[in-house]
């Protein structure tokens, strides 16, 4: 649903670069700062206060104080939390152009998408979860004996939220919104590559009037600030989106410290299965977007496109066409579909994997190298004749590189689809009702799309099977992960049904 997009602010003013604790802006305890880089120009945008353990300690202390029994936040009616969240949604929409421009500057994603998708996605999270605030019910339960038994869904407490760089604003809100709706308090560490929109969000949180300490934001690096959050004994829960490798470290850190609950949204190598009876044009187009959206920097990227042999060649041809037509350029240009990759690390990694594809015998159909000579731009790349054992078929590339593999039968492709440590998403394109449900029910993936891709909403649970993650975000299931169940059992003189 696109609206006419207002022109971007090409040089958005950077207003906030400090650490946000108790609704105040402070410098890092160490005095250190770190740079954030524009991936189009490869130049430093600005320096941000670098949070480390000492700053995390301050933030967690502030959050803990704001969560004390009797505090304004604990005493606030649930419906009032919803009102504050809706107000936050209003302020974000007020500043939609600025936030989208800032996100584009910091992340390199096309401004048009940031305006039409990223910012509204964040607002949807806020409004959806606001609606849950006064609906998190417990139960009364008919236990045996003379007892009155009920459960309360209490907020779990201090939530350590660690956000990624691919959808910085949207995913920060994907965690903050349900946490606040459930009555928790938050310490957020945005990704060091993309802190700016999170810090601007902090200013809106203060403007709305959330009590001090309810949301705190500590920019910094994973091994320092991130680790400090995950190891902190007063953090009750961590919600992390990022790589599987770091997910494992976080889980171990919880085991080492206070057994805090851990929700993880990690990587994927999602199979996208196209049967011969599918609407071929539609399937090829959807499969193109499934891979190239956000420059391939999507956890749910359809990065193993399995196409039934009868339609394989035709499908590859269409895919090449779409890849070649996809425009790459300045994110602030409204006609551009792809910006640069996020930074030089990712840039090098993707080019390395493309090389491996060539060396291992996949057929490079288009693209395959750097685009232009400045900025982390990579050409839209398509490989055909990919086999399951190649690196590009097994490892998450997180770039604009599409793998098209051939399959014969449904049983064969389901086996191959499941032959991975990942399990985030999957898709099937077919008109056949039996095939559709057979794939949907047998593939090990947290989200399965039938004749669609990337259709997601805060109201539907989202998360991974296997090493793609633990827990679910979205929907009632998602918000209840921010609740702790307390069972209360009261002796009564005589129970009756």
């Amino acid at each position: 649903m696109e609206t006419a997009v207002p022109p971007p602010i090409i040089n958005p003013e950077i207003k906030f670069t400090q650490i946000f604790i108790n609704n105040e802006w402070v410098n890092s305890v160490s005095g250190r700062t770190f740079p954030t880089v524009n991936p189009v120009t490869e130049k430093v945008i600005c320096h941000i206060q670098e949070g480390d353990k000492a700053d995390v300690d301050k933030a967690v202390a502030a959050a803990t104080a704001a969560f004390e029994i009797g505090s304004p936040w604990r005493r606030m009616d649930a419906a009032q939390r919803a009102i504050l969240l809706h107000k936050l949604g209003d302020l974000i929409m007020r500043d939609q152009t600025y936030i989208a421009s800032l996100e584009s500057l910091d992340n390199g994603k096309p401004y048009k998408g940031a305006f039409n998708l990223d910012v509204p996605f964040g607002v949807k999270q806020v409004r959806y979860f606001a609606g849950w605030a006064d609906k998190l019910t417990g139960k009364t339960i008919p236990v045996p004996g003379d007892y009155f038994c009920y459960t309360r869904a209490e907020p779990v407490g201090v939530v350590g939220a660690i956000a990624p760089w691919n959808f910085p604003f949207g995913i920060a809100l994907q965690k903050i919104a349900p946490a606040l709706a459930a009555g928790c308090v938050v310490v957020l560490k945005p990704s060091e590559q993309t802190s700016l929109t999170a810090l601007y969000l902090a200013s809106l949180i203060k403007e709305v009037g959330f009590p001090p300490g309810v949301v705190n934001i500590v920019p910094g690096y994973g091994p320092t600030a991130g680790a400090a959050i995950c190891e902190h004994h007063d953090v009750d829960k961590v919600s992390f989106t990022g790589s599987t490798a770091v997910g494992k470290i976080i889980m171990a850190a919880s085991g080492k410290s206070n057994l805090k609950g851990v929700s993880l949204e990690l990587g994927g190598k999602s199979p996208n299965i196209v049967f011969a009876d599918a609407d071929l044009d539609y399937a090829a187009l959807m499969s193109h977007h499934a891979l190239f959206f956000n420059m391939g920097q999507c956890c749910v990227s359809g990065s193993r496109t399995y196409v039934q042999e009868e339609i394989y060649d035709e499908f590859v041809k269409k895919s090449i066409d779409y890849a070649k037509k996809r425009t790459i350029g300045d994110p602030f240009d409204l006609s551009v579909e792809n910006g640069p990759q996020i930074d030089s690390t990712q840039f090098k990694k993707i080019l390395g994997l493309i090389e491996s594809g060539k060396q291992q015998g996949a057929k490079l159909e288009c693209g395959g190298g750097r685009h232009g000579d400045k900025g982390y731009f990579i050409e839209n790349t398509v490989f055909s004749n990919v086999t399951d054992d190649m690196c590009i078929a097994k490892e998450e590339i997180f770039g604009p590189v599409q793998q098209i593999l051939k399959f014969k039968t449904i049983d064969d492709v389901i086996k191959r689809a499941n032959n991975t440590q990942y399990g985030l998403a999957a898709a099937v394109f077919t008109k056949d009702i039996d095939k559709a449900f057979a794939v949907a029910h047998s593939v090990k993936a947290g989200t399965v799309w039938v004749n669609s891709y990337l259709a997601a909403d805060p109201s539907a649970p989202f998360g991974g099977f296997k090493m793609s993650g633990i827990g679910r975000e979205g929907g009632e299931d998602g918000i209840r992960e921010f609740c702790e169940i307390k069972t209360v059992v009261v002796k009564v003189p005589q129970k009756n049904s």
Partner: protein
Amino acid sequence: MLLFAKKLGTASSGLQKAYSYATAAAATALPHPLTNVKPRYTTVFINNEWHKGCDGNTLPIINPATEEKIGDVVLGNKADVDKAVAAARAAFKMGSAWRRIDASSRGTLVNRLADLMERDKVYLTSLETLNAGKPYTQVCSFDMTLSIKILRYYAGWCDKIHGKTIPIDGDYLCVTRREPVGVCGLIIPWNFPILMLAFKLAPALAAGNTIVLKPSEKTPLTALYIAQLCAEAGFPAGVVNVVPGDGETTGAALVAHSDVNKITFTGSTEVGHLIQKSLGESNLKRLTLELGGKSPNIVLADADLEKAVDVSHQALFFNMGQCCTAGSRTFVQSKIYDEFVERSIEKANSRIIGDPFDLTTEHGPQIDDIQYKQVLRYIDIGKSEGAKMVTGGGRYGKKGFYIQPTVFKDVQDDMTIAKEEIFGPVMQILKFDTMEEVCERANKTQYGLAASIFTKDIDKALTLVKNIQSGTVWVNCYNVLDAAAPFGGYKMSGLGRELGESGLDAYTESKTVTINISENNS
């Protein structure tokens, strides 16, 4: 928050959030009423447009504080109802705008209606005060505040109305869809016109239904204004329709209509009977009823006496006794009975009676001449059957349907005033000795809407809670309502529940879909 809290008793920690009317001090925080308020809409609202009534008949609308006519409103007839139902049916067709929009967009529209009511709240609350005679401060701090909260609460449910997937035997995918039930007939009473409208409109719209609303013939003005706000909010034409009129012409036509899928009615038990019969005789449409009550309010000797007296007073006299939940049988344990009666007389005598627009007024007129005469009749019956009237008992002033706050003591269970719903400012105080005795007496009624107990003893509190046949039970409080808590009656106080998640059940129809698949795996 406009809601005003009263510090009740010394035992309460912090502010007690009882939905009591605003005190005079608090009233200064409220916006001043429009004492010259005029009604804006007086005809039939169909398809987001105003229509003349089909036969030209109207009903006069009376200001109960002055007995003067405010204006005339259309008396809708069967033809008007037919038009409205047809519009609602068309708006509900498969493929219509209303059926196609995202559930979350319904939420946006309901929230927008709440915003508009907030924007026009001075006008709406003033109009309600003029038409219903309710004290303006009460309409602001209770009626209007809770109405907007209910709208916002249900706005949040729109995209959360879940069906399930169910692991049945065999090679099947089995899911339930919760679909809107269809064209809903909403019949609203006169005691809380805006609030009762919110109670019904919010969940009906949230679940995706279309509506034909019939406000009470005594108090249609605010409903008609809100209809226009629905159009302004952006609800597609035909989603909300309003046909003003009375029970025996307009209401009856709506209730008997073969193309209406559901009726929800708040009003007297007597009319509830008629409606249920009519549904049986027509198309078995779904039904929710919120009817009368004779709610027992039980005060034990160990209660915080000052708080119990205060809250029991409000429990009866709130809204001039015109509350379905009125605590109209105040059972007081013998040990504290005399003291309780004395203090209750004091409270009744200090209740400030006056012009509803006056910010210090706590007690306005009864709604109309019929109710006024009925209440006075009950007072006479009470006296003649031997109850002891200790204060009040007659008209107040010379103009308007005002009745003095009245208290009876030494009331026995078999007296008429202890059995029948008076719906006026008449308090019955009965004596009891033991918990067992009072639990039994409390249940000896055809009604079962609300009940309460005042005690510090946790065991006694939970004993009443378990024993009483009542849809709502209050412990050490009264009339605490919330958008999220289900509300409704046992026995002849009603059928079904409003508010809360349960409030949505009545407005949805569950469809089970079973799809044969090639091979089911767990």
